[in-house]
């Protein structure tokens, strides 16, 4: 039986400042800038292709606003 790992990204829309850094450093194009705006009138990042995520943490590490949290799920 192979264990398949799945990664759950949470991006806090109020912390996110739309700096684009997570997108720039995600090799898997998991994240994209959304069109919605948060309460400060800023666009924020969204995990648009979470299934591609490999849990490499590039995004969480680079995020200056600690807006990204990642959990791993094994199945």
């Amino acid at each position, binding site marked *: 039986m192979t264990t398949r790992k799945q990664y759950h990204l949470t991006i806090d829309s109020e*912390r996110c400042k739309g*700096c684009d850094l997570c997108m720039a450093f995600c090799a898997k194009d998991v994240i994209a800038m959304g069109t919605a705006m948060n309460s400060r009138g800023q666009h924020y990042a969204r995990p648009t292709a*979470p299934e591609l995520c490999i849990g490499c943490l590039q995004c969480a590490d*680079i*995020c*200056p606003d600690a807006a*990204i949290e990642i*959990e791993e*799920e094994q199945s």
Partner: protein
Amino acid sequence: MTSTPSTRPPRHVATRYPLYHRPASLKPVPTHFCPGCGHGTAIKLIAETLDALGIRERTVGVAPVGCAVLAYNYLDCDISEAAHGRAAAVATGIKRCLPDRIVFSYQGDGDLAAIGMGETIHAANRGEHIAVIFVNNTVYGMTGGQMAPTTLIGQKTSTSPFGRDQATTGAPIKICELLNTLEAPWHIERVALDGPAGVRRTRKALTTAFQAQMDDKGYSFIEVLSPCPIHMRCTPVEAVGLIKEKMIPYFPLGIYRQNGQSMT
């Protein structure tokens, strides 16, 4: 505060565990830093380090004025303000009075390398048992982007509107190299927030610095090359690129002093 989960919460919670969670030492409030500012990253990493080493409750930080000063809004440990440039002296006062606490200062380049040069060198020379975290973003961020001692040659700032001119303002000062001529320092290292790998090296450097103090070893100095997109006059992603292409070639990364031994 609303958050945006990427998927609905799954059923089988037991097999799900955090790969990355916001550190407990980071207060749960959004920061006032500009988008893409390296201060956010650096402060996050300090919080992670306090968590990882379990020292939040015995740590006292010093935050002088600069965008750095807002650290005290976000880090959940005891923190003292310091007058511009004087963090090293304030940290000295604290550490000498509380030798068994962990004391760090968190300073910008205007603060540490311009007005605070004297205090910086003398605290390092005395070998104060403190950790100095030096955020080098090549400008005075908080006051609106003036030239700093670390501003690159040719870089335009509000006080070098035609680009920094080496003939009249000299070259950017390499603080690690300067401090490495002194005898006392235990650890001196330069890292960069130039991408996720740089973030990880920075985390490691911070751990070394705080650990050194837990082991009562001496003075540690971590210079963090850091983006200030606003005053670097570019986007956050470009700012990170600028660190790689312009800053690192001038400010070489690496460990300058390890276990009290010069590595150069």
